[in-house]
């Protein structure tokens, strides 16, 4: 039961961050260039994502042995999670600027206003293409998270439900706010998600190394699933130590 809540919490949080980024792009296009072409781009991206998910999910679940799946997906998840954790550490240490959805919204709005009208297939082409790309690419990250967490925990429906709930919540908040969700503590969320992805990535990639032993069974962790908590504590400790020990940026010259 606790493993299911962990899966749901991790998938929900990671998906929430991706949906906020997609919403920022869609709002910028919709508010500056009109909603018809923007929403057409969102719908086209949703169809493309559904096809991508069906093909990738079927191929992975049908043809790949479990330990190979753990090794491949765990490795991808670990690298992906450590990229997030690295950025979170650098931001917390003051060595990288905080990600600002308001700034991203202003930039997207400026781009949308600067381009002249170009109509294709009866649509304003810029908001269609930008919203399609934004939703497809951020959505592909959500699909990756759902497939990796769902398949490894043998509970794809719980992972998909958590991601869907995150998507619905972000859309509702967007409808209420009509602006990017700048108040969401995105950098803190990304730090937490980086820790969770690094933890599961370490757990599964090392389990998957069992494929190199006779029988190809997954490698066992000392303590079984409790090792996840130890790994989470270890990644948290290491990242906080880095934040404390990395040199502070030099003060700007006056």
């Amino acid at each position, binding site marked *: 039961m606790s493993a299911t809540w962990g899966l749901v919490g991790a998938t929900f949080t990671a998906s929430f961050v991706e949906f906020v980024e997609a919403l920022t792009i869609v709002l910028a296009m919709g508010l500056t260039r009109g909603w018809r072409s923007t929403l057409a781009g969102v719908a086209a991206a949703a169809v493309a994502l559904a096809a991508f998910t069906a093909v990738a999910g079927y191929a992975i679940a049908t043809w790949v042995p479990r330990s190979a799946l753990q090794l491949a997906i765990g490795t991808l998840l670990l690298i992906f999670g450590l990229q997030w954790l690295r950025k979170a550490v650098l931001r917390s240490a003051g060595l990288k600027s905080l990600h600002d959805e308001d700034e991203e919204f202003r930039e997207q709005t400026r781009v949308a206003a600067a381009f002249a009208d170009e109509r294709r297939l009866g649509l304003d082409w810029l908001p269609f293409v930008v919203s399609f790309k934004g939703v497809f690419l951020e959505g592909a990250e959500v699909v990756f998270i759902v497939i990796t967490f769902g398949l490894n925990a043998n509970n794809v429906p719980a992972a998909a439900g958590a991601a869907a709930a995150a998507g619905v919540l972000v859309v509702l908040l967007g409808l209420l706010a009509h602006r990017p969700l700048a108040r969401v503590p995105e950098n803190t969320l990304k730090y937490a998600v980086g820790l969770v992805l690094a933890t599961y990535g370490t757990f599964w990639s090392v389990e998957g190394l069992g494929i190199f032993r006779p029988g190809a069974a997954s490698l066992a962790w000392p303590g079984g699933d409790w090792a996840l908590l130890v790994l989470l504590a270890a990644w948290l400790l290491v990242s906080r*130590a880095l934040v404390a020990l990395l040199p502070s940026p030099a003060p700007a010259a006056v």
Partner: protein
Amino acid sequence: MKAFGRFWWDFLIGDDPKIAVSVLVVLVAGAIVVAATSGGWPAAAIAGALLTAFVAAVVLDVRHNR
């Protein structure tokens, strides 16, 4: 297609390839150790190596960019 390729590069490699390289190096070394031994003890050792590799990659990154 170009954007899709760039997405996967950003997704997996990001702006610091040292992270991806260090993870792959540790896991390849781990695979050799796992294949040559029995029992579950290599799991903790490999996890320790991954933590150390991450620290080394971040410290090198910060020093390089100062």
